[in-house]
């Protein structure tokens, strides 16, 4: 059902005897391609990361939705799922990883810890109280930890966001 719909090409295909042509918008086709091939960074800091690994593997298998390969280097990734507690000592590392990712890049904050410090909000000397103090966040997923379904939902929400982006038009407008 839904999965197949999302893969449908955004535009019209006109068949002619010797081939055919298609009519579309550049932004639509770029976003279509981009949203169906998001490469997440292999990054996890605590218990939420276990749930994220679970989402990668066969039972939930996020490749079905176009999040095919996890990259071990930020230079090849365009999505960072911050799954787990970020402590003060980790914060500069997270910022650097984010800075190293090529544009356009997206951030999912997975779990209570990344949203607000969650279970470590009170009386802690070490935990950052929400990663939005460090990097901009596209989608927040509540839960401790969120179930794999919730993470998948957030990723599909991110795809919607990417599809509604006007990246190409913005580049033209800048000139």
């Amino acid at each position, binding site marked *: 059902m839904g999965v197949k719909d999302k893969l449908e090409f955004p535009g019209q295909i006109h068949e002619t005897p010797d081939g055919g042509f298609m009519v579309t918008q550049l932004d639509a086709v770029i976003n279509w391609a981009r949203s169906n091939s998001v490469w997440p960074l292999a990054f996890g800091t605590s218990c939420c990361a276990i749930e994220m690994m679970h989402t990668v593997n066969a039972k939930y298998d996020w490749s079905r939705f176009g999040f095919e390969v996890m990259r071990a280097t930020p230079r090849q990734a365009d999505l960072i799922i911050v799954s787990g507690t970020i402590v*003060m000592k980790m914060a500069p590392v997270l910022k650097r990883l984010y800075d190293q990712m090529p544009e356009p890049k997206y951030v999912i904050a997975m779990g209570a810890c990344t949203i607000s410090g969650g279970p470590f909000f009170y*009386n802690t*000397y070490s935990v950052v*109280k929400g990663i939005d103090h460090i990097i901009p966040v596209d989608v927040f997923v509540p839960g401790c930890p969120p179930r794999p379904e919730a993470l998948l939902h957030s990723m599909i929400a991110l795809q919607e966001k990417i599809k509604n982006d006007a990246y190409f038009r913005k580049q033209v407008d800048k000139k």
Partner: protein
Amino acid sequence: MTNEELKNNITQVFSAVTFDETGEFLNVIIPSEELLPFMKVLRSTKEFNFDYLFCLTCVDWKDHLMMVYFLNSKTHNHTIVVKAKITDTINPQIESVYDIWKTAELNEDEVFDLFGVKFLNHPNLRRIFLEEDWVGYPLRKNYVDEHMIEL
């Protein structure tokens, strides 16, 4: 040795100890000045032969600190918990057990880092988790800093 035998043998060697048998292991509470000689006896006496320090930590009880050492013997397969009370919370210090068990080096670094206990005769006492310039000892009950939101 069973807890009962351990207890009897220890009282023969050291009289200044008290025992607490509520837990699984035999707890020996010893004045902090006596710690080092007592530990040496536990390590070197054949019948005790506590050759493995498997946990070293500290507890903050607000009016005093309690050092806790978990010892095990690989040859006799018996376990004991040694506790030493440090009454001076402003400038707490105690002898290092590094000379007896090498593994104590990093454990004591950690206790120094988070509780601020100074270990005398420790080879390299330093902060191992927090930055060098960190102010205070975060696992102490009275610790506060500007990031902290108190409940």
